[in-house]
């Protein structure tokens, strides 16, 4: 594993048994270490991303990856600073992507609910087609008993979920949602989702695991990609280069080093 020559195109080898669609992509992309096995493809319908902690970078990475591979605009209903631009500019290979994400923040449950309700107005008045709808931490505002009685909070959250499902169908786009915690109160979010992805920190880096997907590409352990951001940024930059998106000069020009085969880190698949 000392060979870190980029031209050595050994890719991750251990592919999960399911994930058929992804595997097709993989085979097609197998000539480049562009991170193809790092990020799951977001299909139409609602995808719930869970994580061990605040999944800011994972959500942003998935959004960027999706925008690189698809045309259109992402509409992002934000709470609690998940749409932090400081982070986004660090991960995104091109500042052009900043303009392909439209954000509206809900600072209270009332505002959050209204943003969700008014989303069609924003989408319909926008010149580009929607590529993706993002709504992190859906439960965040509906848990504070000082603002809303439990019953009212449940009603509002329920209406938010119903609308997001409707949007997924009506616009035929992926809807990527999240929650701050997984418990009985946030169970309706999981129930509403068509599929779930879990992002967890492993000793080898962050890993996405889902029914049909498992991250199989890992950074080499030589310290170069020890941080999530540097690692993902490099992978996304490689992806951008391949799909022809201009990359900013300030972005790293190195490619991910030869990935490490996953023999030692097998997940049973969920």
């Amino acid at each position, binding site marked *: 594993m000392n060979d870190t020559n980029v031209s050595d195109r050994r890719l991750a080898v251990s592919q999960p048994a399911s994930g058929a669609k992804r595997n097709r992509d993989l085979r097609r992309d197998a000539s480049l270490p562009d991170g193809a096995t790092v990020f799951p493809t977001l299909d139409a319908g609602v995808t719930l991303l869970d994580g061990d902690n605040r999944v800011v970078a994972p959500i942003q990475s998935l959004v960027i990856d999706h925008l690189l591979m698809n045309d259109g605009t992402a509409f992002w209903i934000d709470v609690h600073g998940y749409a932090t631009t400081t982070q986004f500019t660090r991960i995104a290979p091109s500042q052009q992507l900043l303009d392909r994400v439209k954000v509206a923040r809900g600072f209270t449950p009332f505002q959050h609910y209204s943003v969700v309700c008014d989303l069609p107005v924003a989408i319909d008045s926008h010149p580009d087609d929607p590529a993706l709808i993002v709504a992190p931490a859906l439960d965040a505002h509906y848990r504070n008993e000082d603002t809303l009685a439990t019953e009212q909070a449940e009603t509002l959250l329920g*209406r938010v979920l119903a609308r997001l499902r409707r949007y997924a169908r009506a616009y035929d786009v992926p809807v990527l949602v999240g929650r701050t915690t997984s418990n009985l109160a946030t169970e309706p979010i999981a129930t509403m989702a068509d599929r779930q992805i879990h992002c967890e920190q492993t000793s080898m880096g962050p890993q996405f695991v889902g029914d049909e997907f498992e991250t199989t590409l890992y950074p080499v352990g030589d310290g170069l990609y020890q941080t999530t951001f540097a690692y993902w940024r490099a992978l996304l930059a490689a992806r951008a280069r391949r799909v022809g998106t201009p990359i900013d000069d300030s972005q790293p020009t190195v490619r991910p080093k030869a990935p490490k085969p996953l023999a030692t880190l097998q997940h049973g698949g969920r």
Partner: protein
Amino acid sequence: MSTNKESKPWKLRSGKIWRHLIVAYKFDFLDDGRVLEWELTADGADYTVQTGYTPRFFVGARSSSVDVALEALVELYENHPDVAAVERLERRPGFRRQHESVLAIDATHVGAVPTLAEQARQLPAIPIGDVTTFNVDYSREFRYCLETDHDPTPTRSPTTLTLSVSLPETAGEKYGELTVGEKTVSGDPATILAAVQTAIDDRDPDVLICSSANIIPTLYSMADDDAIDWFSLSRWPDVEYQQLATRSSYASYGQIGHSPARYNVPGRVIVDCSNSFFLGQANLDGILDLVSRSRKPLQEAAWASIGNILTAIQICEAHSRDVLVPNHSWRHEQFKSMGTLHNADRGGFTFASEVGLHENVHELDFASLYPNIICTRNVSPDVIRCDCHADRSDVPELGYSICEEEGYLVDVLQPLIDDRQAIKAELRRERASDHPDADRIESLSGRSDALKWILVACFGYQGFNNAKFGRIECHEAINAFAREILLTAKDHLEAGGWRVAHGIVDSIWVKPEPEAADQQPLEEIAATITDDVGIELEYEGEFDWVAFVPQRNSDGGALTKYFGKHANRDEFKIRGIEARQRSTPPFIEAFQTECLDCLDRTRSPQAVLGLLERAIARLRRGDVDPAELVVRNRVSKPVNAYSQYTTNVAALERARDQGLTIHPGQDVRYVVVDDEKRSRDRVALAHESPERYDASYYVTELVRATESILSPVGWKREQIHEELEESEEVDLRSF
């Protein structure tokens, strides 16, 4: 004046001038629904009893795109015993909405409004999210003025009587000593109550200024205990006093606040010194100025926060435009690109401060920068990012449009800016006159201060999540304009041969650029900048020197900490350092001021260190009067909410042991007597008149105060300690 008004006595006006307003300065709400209106007369006050007052709130669609079947609510409310009438009316449910059909619900009692409003959310047919309630959480007297066309501005200067008790007196159930007006009386309850009663009878005060509102129930319970039936504070024979609110904690803008109980005495205004922001930061004249602007009667204005007053002024504006005020703001920000968000998140502008001591520095200030940006650039929630000019880019960096229609916030703030300017001009004239009138100066200062706080807050208010009238896009736009304005100013100054040493928010410090051949006079440049940006840049003055203090753990400048010596006058300008902080003990404050003098005379850090050594020696010898070492801290939370055992906690526990209650918002005053202890013996309370103190604790405080003065010239705490140790060794050797 009629004593019986019809049930819906008010009409909404379309103009902005409050026409034909009835004058009254205080309103009392009786349990049976009657309202007492108090009007000041030449030698007291007269009341009118009003029956049939029915406070009104509204229910309407959350957004004009939501179709709500309000009929279901009509039935619900018409059958409710606390409802006097239900009516369909046309109103504007927001500044950006046109007239829509809404329900107006008249309650039988002002206390019933919040509960009734809550019920609008309880029909399964109309789930939460479809409707909004409007005009719900108004304070009572304010609502009454608004709904019944009253102007609460007192027609003459109200008479006052001060009642105050010292902290130790609050320990028991009754007072043994009380200050009534200028006289302190002590003795048994009958003596004390008699003194209060005499003052009330003699002066018949319109306002009772109390050190704590708890004085009212305490005096009455003293009367009860001694079966004294002649004691009365009230101007209305049937009701002695009412409790308006219990002591409570509340969450506000993400922080936990604490408010003491509030009491009401019919016919008189209670001002609770421990619960009045504006009494502390301005004075009664300042509050009275706010009364006429906000239509919040004196008692409510006295306990109001800045945000309460600013909201009330905006509610008046909304009211005059037929606009309803939502109980919760459902209005959200519009979608913007992440690129715009990135630019908007950059915050206010600051020039990188050049840490250090600068000589020959001049200060220039933009007068009321943020309010003036709002007014000159028309930054108002109702016109920013308007649909009708969506293709325009009016806000720098963000590209937001601003409508050509004038925004309501301009109408709200312009009079405040203009009036404060006028008051300040009057102040200058009075001070410069041959026989300055001290009372007039105090009155004008109080009014100027009260307005200053409102103007300072109007910017942050736009960014608050829960501000009824705030809008984050306005907050972002104000910041963007401010950055542009400061950069413009910098360009002009540099072109004129000056160099910017420091800049924050609305102030700029410059000194001559050494490279430049000569400097254009600053007044001249200031005039050019004023012309260019449309907001006055005032030349504040010259300093012999100014020092910008670095942050404690880095080399960067702490933007808000600096001190300097005015040129041509014997005065320092101090911001952010210990001598300016209210908690700093007098001894430390005096020491730091001495250091400033010393630095000014000698420019020698060694000389300042000499002062430090002498002060330490005095402390260690026990030569400092403990009264000079009293720390005064404002209590921010209940004692059990502190996570660390600070000196504050020790002091609060000590007070509790003595039966004293110090509520959040009040001051606790103590001397640190043994900082090593982790018990209530760590401190002694000021009223215990301690005779000793913990010298090493105060030595640390002295070193900290010295560091603030010397860090701009490169001395950090470690070097100060090293220097002290060296000189101690010298001392030892000399023995």
